[in-house]
């Protein structure tokens, strides 16, 4: 097991920021911060709602850029081959849409409001992801 205090504290603070962002988006904008659902809605007919979702999504890389300057600016490491990445992207997009949510919508917002659908979805995708990693490490 690898554990380090800095990594843990950064994850804790980053998690609190994610929770605060989802909470404020719910409170002020009356919306669920579900990233796959919002991104998918950009592919349909646009309205003010879509612009509001787009504003949230544009904020993601801007906020990430600022916080990467604050210490945790480690290079992004990808070990998967391009073919694996492409397959993974397709599964992530399609699965999130079919299951009506991803790590943000189900894993954070849904669990925070004790949605039965999200509790089941989160248990399923966490188990599937961990099983996928375990199986691949044996291959």
């Amino acid at each position, binding site marked *: *097991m690898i554990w380090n205090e800095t990594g843990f504290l950064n994850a*804790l*603070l*980053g*998690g609190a*920021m*994610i*929770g605060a962002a*989802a*909470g*404020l*988006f*719910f*409170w002020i904008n*009356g*919306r669920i911060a579900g*990233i796959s659902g919002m*991104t*998918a809605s950009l*592919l349909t007919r646009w309205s003010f709602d879509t612009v*509001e979702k787009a504003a*949230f*999504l*544009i*904020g*993601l890389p*801007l*906020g*990430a*850029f600022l916080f990467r300057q604050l210490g945790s600016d*480690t290079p*992004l*490491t990808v*070990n*998967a081959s391009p073919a*694996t990445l*492409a*397959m993974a*992207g*397709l*599964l*992530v997009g*399609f*699965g999130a*849409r079919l*299951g*009506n949510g991803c*790590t*943000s919508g*189900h894993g*954070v917002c849904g*669990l*925070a409001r004790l949605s039965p*659908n999200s509790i089941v979805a*989160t248990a*399923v995708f966490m*188990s*599937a*992801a961990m099983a996928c990693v*375990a199986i691949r490490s044996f291959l």
Partner: protein
Amino acid sequence: MSPAVRLLAALLAGGLFGGGLALSGMINPAIVLGFLDIAGGQWNPNLAAVMIAAIPVAAGLFYLARLTRPANQVPSTPKRQIDWKLIVGAALFGIGWGLAGICPGPALVDVTIDGRFLVFALPMIVGLALGNRLRA
């Protein structure tokens, strides 16, 4: 609230969310895969702290929102509807997440840092579009 205030709030909420993704390590596929590798000798449990912190903070703010705003202005919790789409969708999503270590939020951040992530993000958009059709 005026449209301008709403858009600014959305942008700031997105910024705070993205900052959290970057600070926590969620945008780094290697860290995410290390967290998912519970059976391996190199398991990195740090990212559990993301959910441990995010869920109670969000829950507290959801609660305050419900106290202070009319019921029709905050989203209600969806009815229990656990069908094959939810289960199969979540399973496929999990497999994809386990293959790459990237979920949708980090994907949108990572493509702005390194163009190689387009190999993941573009098929993800295609997958979202296909999923839209199947849900319709």
